[in-house]
């Protein structure tokens, strides 16, 4: 086996397929966890998995100044790093309205909503992580969530800085969840440390 370090630029289609599968199962788990929580049917589109340059991430979210909710976790265990669950503000409001049983999704988010959002981020992220854990056999633990609602650029600077030490690209799993006519778009970012990235791919059996 070559001793070269694996970087995210070396990801090939096979890796992408595996990540897509993790995204698929993770999103499925996330959707059923959410459905259970609100006791309503949740549908899900096939998630889109992308490897992106950081400058393009903000554009996907509607620009650097777009207000978004980011829920950030530290990952510990066999692999270390961070994950971030990102929702645009419209999706955040819809999600909290569903959770709080409100009709209207236009209200400003209060403390209770923020806490609910943090919790739902926790559950959804946990779903991705358990699918990752199940597929790789790696033990992965999440820290408590930390929520920040601010400009997309500012929130993304945190994973961007972390990633910039190894690469300028990230893995994004974009999931569309639907409850009735409500659509919630969740963006799940996987940010393993460079060493963990090797380990992750090795565990997936796709290290080439």
């Amino acid at each position, binding site marked *: 086996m070559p001793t070269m370090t694996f970087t995210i630029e070396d990801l090939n289609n096979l890796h992408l397929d595996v990540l897509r599968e993790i995204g698929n199962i993770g999103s499925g788990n996330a959707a059923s966890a959410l459905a259970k929580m609100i006791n309503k049917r949740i549908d899900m589109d096939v998630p889109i998995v992308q490897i992106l340059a950081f400058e393009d991430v903000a554009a996907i979210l509607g620009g650097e100044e777009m207000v978004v909710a980011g829920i950030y976790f530290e990952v510990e265990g066999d692999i270390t790093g961070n994950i971030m669950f990102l929702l645009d503000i419209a999706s955040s409001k819809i999600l909290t309205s569903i959770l709080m049983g409100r009709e209207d999704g236009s209200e400003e988010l209060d403390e209770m909503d923020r806490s609910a959002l943090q919790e739902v981020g926790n559950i959804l992220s946990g779903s991705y992580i358990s699918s990752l854990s199940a597929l790789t056999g790696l033990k992965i633990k999440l820290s408590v969530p930390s929520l920040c609602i601010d*400009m997309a650029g500012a929130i993304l*600077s945190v994973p961007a800085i972390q990633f*910039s030490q190894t690469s300028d690209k990230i893995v994004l799993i974009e999931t569309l969840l639907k409850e009735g006519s409500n659509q919630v778009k969740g963006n799940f970012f996987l940010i393993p440390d460079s060493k963990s990235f090797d380990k992750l791919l090795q565990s997936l059996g796709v290290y080439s």
Partner: protein
Amino acid sequence: MQKVIKVGMADLQVVEEPHILTTLGLGSCVGIALYDKQKKIAGLAHIMLPSSTQIKNNSNLAKFADTAIDLLIKEMVKRGASTARLKAKITGGAQMFSFGNNGGDLMKIGYRNVIATKEILELYKIDILAEDTGGNHGRTIEFYSETGDLLVKTIGFGLKTI
């Protein structure tokens, strides 16, 4: 005609009067604005990390406080600015997320970026006229080459000129 030039992440730009430099959604990164008042030359760097010496992947000079400030000064001098006349204003370096007691190095990166920026500016003997750093919120900045004013916009923390 007045142009607004965008400075991306790990990027730097220099303009002359009457143009404006802007960077959107600054978080833990630091925006370093340098100004030569006499020549009305403005430079803005958007750095992500404190030092190029602690990291292997360091080919982008605009990414680090040390190499970005050095390059920014060079670019400004090329346009006719004088290092001795340069004054600085700095913004950003926020801690967007907090994890209770143990934040780890990553969580303190904003703070470390600010400290490194100040140290490097000190090396070049460039005074810092004003700063709006730290906190836990993002900032969008506009830097005016006509006046040297730096406008800082936030979500929920108001608007100010430094």
